[in-house]
């Protein structure tokens, strides 16, 4: 009899400590909703191919953080403390879960620059060096960031109770328009840590939707004649130019916008390693192993910030709408500036390459190529579009530096 009582008590204890009783509470139900949302993201990543490399870790981080009673991530450890410090380091070290430890890389701004190191090691800046005017298209496509900043502030003012975005929130939401995931995370972790999960999911989802979002805007803003323009072949770029470019860019950007130095610096370090041709082992590591490891850590820990309390709010809905606006205005800014360059150069620039100024490398450049070939099958815009595309990476990092400098 005693054995049976002991058995029943043990089972009751396990049930009491399990996640099931939690499901009877409102918090538990909201966590269940978040688990369902993470399953939808799995579907989008696996079945629909939406940026699966990042969306799968993000969605799984979301799943883990919303498991009732698991306690893998503690947002309260990362809130600003009474003494002004940005997190409670002692609590994290003593009682932090796995995701708390991984999130340190986001909170301290380590992962996004490391991702940029890998991107730099994979990027060929040759098309940009061959046609430096492409830089201007990369700048024009950042228009979406600043217009969305305005839109977010206006939305916050219109719904102060439910949405109520602050200026810092608006800056973090606007950066979605840069179409650059690591940059968006880098800005959001400083300006709006509570919105990090929603911003990352919106940024990566819309980046996956670039082939759907951009073509209608590109076609609406250009004429058939403009879309058919065949551009002159790019000049060959010497090795010295390719070697000098990362060093000069780092110095110029960091002198003017020091807050952009971690992103641009690591991007250019990766690129210099690649172009130098003497550190193949380091380049392979930056391109593959390091990039993959950091991608997993970044994705899981960013997903972990999407707790039910943070994610299931009208703010997320606002971010989803504003993210779409950011991408659309960025694309429009690039195409319209491309039209201006077309007029100024006497029809030598195809405005379609302007849309590639939103980063999203190389997806946005492929979209320019595809839309151009629909009008003129013998037209190859890809390399011309790669110039604004990589300029957009630098442009969005500069824009991020400006937002951090003003709003931090």
């Amino acid at each position, binding site marked *: 009899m005693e054995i049976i009582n002991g058995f029943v008590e043990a089972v009751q204890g396990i049930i009491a400590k399990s996640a099931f009783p939690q499901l009877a509470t409102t918090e538990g139900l909201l966590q269940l909703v978040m688990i369902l949302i993470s399953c939808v993201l799995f579907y989008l990543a696996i079945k629909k191919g939406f940026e699966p490399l990042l969306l799968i870790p993000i969605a799984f981080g979301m799943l883990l953080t919303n498991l009732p009673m698991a306690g893998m991530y503690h947002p309260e450890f990362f809130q600003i403390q009474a003494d002004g410090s940005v997190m409670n380091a002692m609590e994290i070290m003593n009682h932090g879960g796995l995701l708390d430890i991984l999130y340190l890389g986001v909170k301290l701004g380590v992962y996004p620059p490391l991702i940029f190191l890998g991107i730099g090691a994979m990027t060929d800046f040759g098309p940009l060096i061959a046609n*430096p*005017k492409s830089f*201007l298209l990369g*700048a024009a496509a950042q228009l979406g960031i600043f217009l969305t900043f305005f839109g977010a502030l206006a939305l916050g003012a219109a719904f102060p109770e439910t949405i109520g975005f602050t200026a810092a929130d608006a800056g973090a939401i606007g950066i979605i328009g840069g179409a650059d995931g690591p940059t968006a995370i880098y800005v959001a972790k400083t300006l709006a840590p509570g919105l990090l999960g929603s911003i990352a999911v919106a940024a990566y989802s819309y980046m996956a939707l670039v082939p759907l979002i951009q073509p209608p805007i590109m076609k609406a803003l250009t004429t058939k004649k403009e879309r058919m323009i065949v551009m002159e072949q790019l000049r060959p770029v010497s090795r010295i130019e390719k070697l000098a470019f990362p060093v000069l860019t780092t110095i110029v*950007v960091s002198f003017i916008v020091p807050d952009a130095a971690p992103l641009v610096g690591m991007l250019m370090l990766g690129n210099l390693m690649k172009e130098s041709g003497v550190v193949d082992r380091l380049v392979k590591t930056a391109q593959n192993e390091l990039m993959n490891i950091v991608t997993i850590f970044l994705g899981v820990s960013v997903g972990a910030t999407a707790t039910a309390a943070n994610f299931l709010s009208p703010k997320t809905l606002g971010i989803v709408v504003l993210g779409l606006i950011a991408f659309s205005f960025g694309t429009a800014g690039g195409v319209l500036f491309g039209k201006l360059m077309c007029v100024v150069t006497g029809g030598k620039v195809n405005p379609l390459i302007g849309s590639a100024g939103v980063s999203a490398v190389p997806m946005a450049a492929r979209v320019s190529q595809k839309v151009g070939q629909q009008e003129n099958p013998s037209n190859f815009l890809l390399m011309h579009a790669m110039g604004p595309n990589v300029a957009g990476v630098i442009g969005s990092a500069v824009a991020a530096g*400006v937002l951090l400098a003003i709003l931090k």
Partner: protein
Amino acid sequence: MDFTLAWTVILSGISIVFLVLIILTLIVMAFGKIMDSAVNAKKNNKSGDPVKAASPAPKAVPAQIVEDGISDEVVAVISASIAAVLGGSGFAIHSVRRAKETARGRSVWSLAGMQQNTSPF
């Protein structure tokens, strides 16, 4: 809504992004010009060289001798590989034939693999 802050961020943001990228444009353009002029100066020096000027017309390149069983595509790939290694021009391929593998020696692929794994050390 704080319009002053909003417009400050928008105007300063757009202008700084353009300023930085315009400066980079000018620097890259100037650097390209310097490189071009350096290359042209080198070419002019070479063309001004009396020995070179008096050099005879280049000899006619003999037709390529390609071993049977090697397709045009393979010849194209070999030519492209050599061009990539040698920097594009200044060479001519006279013949393409299969390398004889010695019975005791390593195959070309094995040698390449060994070289890749050992050369960094």
